[in-house]
């Protein structure tokens, strides 16, 4: 049996190695993701053009506009544009020259001085939800400045502040994407080495030729699983190395950290490859493989917390995240790479990956025994 399994293993390995463009794509695509995502999703929103229409020159109104100017010069969230009237500002907003504008009404300061409610109008282009939310948050945050100097003067209070203390070395957004990119490389590798190879061989009648020899379905499944694991682990290791090189990250925890890293890469590869083989066990046309591959990528990658914290998800998506193997793989890799080699933090995730891998391998073998 070993001879037969090794023959399938070697055949698949040779085929993959003789298609360097496919392998190159499997490595390059996750790295492109790292660069594109790293630069498109990270960082504060800056220089949103905000129109200012001021009908009041009183002290509170000046205080408010001063706070906006501080926002423009400090965090640079907004770029202030003087407007003379609300109609003109609205027209500019509609034409896309402004992201929003504020209107300070004529009696703003005097109403506040008399203890009445006074409101500043903020008009936003809410088509871009993220930019408009950022603008509302930034403008709202300036309001306390209208009264705070007076409050400090009357009560003689010192300014309170929060000093964040990070317990691990600083991880910037680019670096934080490395585990996600490695997991994506494993997914793509599994799809190419396991899923697509299996579907193409069935489509071309290769399995039928195999099964007219003493080769069993189990031999085929184990051979494909073995060759796919080797190729996918190698490509993901290259992606990890390039990712760490690009971001300046490093593996913590000494030799044990490296062992843990290889273990997580292996478990993730094995689990995703077996899952792919089980999912594509019945597919008999390459188009089905492509469609299913794209679908699985979306439902596994985005809920994994790779790009955004799971805590922000609705309840149903959190359930998806909990069973998603990529969630656990990313969590384990983050623990090894970013938590100074705190391997205990990865223990639960590693345990889940072991269970997931065994379950998927059993499912793949059972499925392929029936469908090959």
């Amino acid at each position, binding site marked *: 049996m070993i*001879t*037969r399994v*090794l*023959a399938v293993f*070697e*055949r698949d390995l*040779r*085929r993959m190695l*003789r*298609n360097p463009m496919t392998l190159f794509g499997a490595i390059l695509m996750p790295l492109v993701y790292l660069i594109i995502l790293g630069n498109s999703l990270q960082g504060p929103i800056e220089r949103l053009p905000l129109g200012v229409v001021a009908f009041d020159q009183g002290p509170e109104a000046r205080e408010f506009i001063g706070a906006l100017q501080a926002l423009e010069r400090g965090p640079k969230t907004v770029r202030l544009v003087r407007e003379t009237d609300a109609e003109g500002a609205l027209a500019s907003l509609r034409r896309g020259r402004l992201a929003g504008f504020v209107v300070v009404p004529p009696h703003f300061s005097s109403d506040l001085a008399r203890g009445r409610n006074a409101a500043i109008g903020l008009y936003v282009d809410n088509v871009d939800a993220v930019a408009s939310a950022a603008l509302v948050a930034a403008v709202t945050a300036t309001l306390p400045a209208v009264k705070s100097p007076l409050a400090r003067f009357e009560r003689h209070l010192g300014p309170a502040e929060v000093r964040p203390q990070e317990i691990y070395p600083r991880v910037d957004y680019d670096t934080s994407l490395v585990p996600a990119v490695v997991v994506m490389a494993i997914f793509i590798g599994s799809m190419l080495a396991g899923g697509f190879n299996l579907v193409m061989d069935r489509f*071309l*009648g*290769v399995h*039928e*030729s*195999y*099964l*007219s*020899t*003493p*080769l069993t379905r189990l031999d085929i499944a184990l051979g494909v699983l073995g060759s796919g694991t080797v190729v996918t682990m190698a490509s993901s290791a290259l992606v990890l190395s390039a990712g760490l090189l690009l971001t300046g990250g490093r593996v913590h925890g000494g030799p044990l950290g490296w062992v843990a890293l290889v273990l997580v890469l292996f478990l993730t590869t094995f689990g995703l490859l077996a899952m792919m083989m089980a999912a594509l066990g019945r597919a008999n046309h390459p188009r089905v493989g492509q469609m299913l591959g794209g679908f699985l990528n979306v439902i596994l990658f985005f809920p994994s917390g790779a790009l955004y914290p799971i805590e922000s998800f609705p309840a149903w998506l959190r359930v998806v995240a909990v069973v998603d193997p990529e969630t656990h793989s990313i969590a384990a890799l983050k623990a090894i790479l970013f938590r100074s080699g705190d391997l205990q933090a990865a223990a639960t995730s590693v345990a889940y990956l072991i269970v997931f891998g065994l379950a998927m391998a059993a499912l793949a073998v059972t499925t392929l025994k029936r469908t090959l």
Partner: protein
Amino acid sequence: MSAAIEAQKVTRRFGDFVAVDAVDLTVEEGELFGLLGPNGAGKTTLIRMLTGLSRITSGEAFVAGVDVRRDPVALRRAIGVVPQALTSDLDLTGWENLDIYARFFEVPRQRRRARIEELLRRVELWERRGDLVSTYSGGMRRRLEIARGLIHRPRLLFLDEPTIGLDPQSRRTIWDLLRELHGGDSLTISLTTHYMDEAEALCDRVAIIDHGRVVAVGSPAQLKASVPGSDTLDVTLDGPASEELAAAMGALPGVRRIDREDARLVVRADDGARILPRLVEAITREGRTVTAAAMSRVSLEDVFIQITGRSIRDGRAAASEARRSSLPRRFT
């Protein structure tokens, strides 16, 4: 002689559709046996059952002495299969393709190298052994796959439409190879084809299969002899043939049928070579001159028409039409 293939009432159903209907078949050791029939006749399904790739719904079959239903592993070790689709790996060399399959059969390393070399030389691919199969022509790939089917020295080789899609020269090369394997090595070969000339040129015996049933079995000569008036004589006269002349010629012994067409007489006879001189002599006696004469022998195509009432090409067209009509309109 013992039987290499012994099938009794072998049937394959797919739901209500009967693809192979109670087929009885015996192929002797050392025979080159042809399964002939149009596409969709059930040839490939029958072969798939005999090679253990498809379940037998009912009936029983023994191939190379192995009960197909009971011992699939022993069956696979005893037979070689060359499928219709070209399945050799394009990204591997010719040598590597054979090496991988030899390992599937667990051929020991020392014997493996010698066997691969022997086969590559035999199929005239030795010089190209190190080239990727993607650089091979269709004929070369087919030869490689025949070599692949022989890698473990099987007792019986199944070939499914081995020359489909090949140019005439490549077809001839494959024919020569099969003749050599059959004649030189006394290998039992089961050949599936819908090419009449191929079956006629290669096979010791042929089974004609239609609508899942074996409708005739015999050597090509026996099958052709079973058609009354198996030879056709086409005689051209110096002027229009009269009805009386045609009637007189039709009365000659051995003439089965005569048709008159202007200056031509088309005569169907059992033994054309013997009848032709007599026919010319009788026509001359009637004061007429024969300006041209030709004789053609009945082909397996004629046998097929005689047995099934339609030509094999009609059958192929009908099969493809049936497939088309089963598709939704937007795909047709």
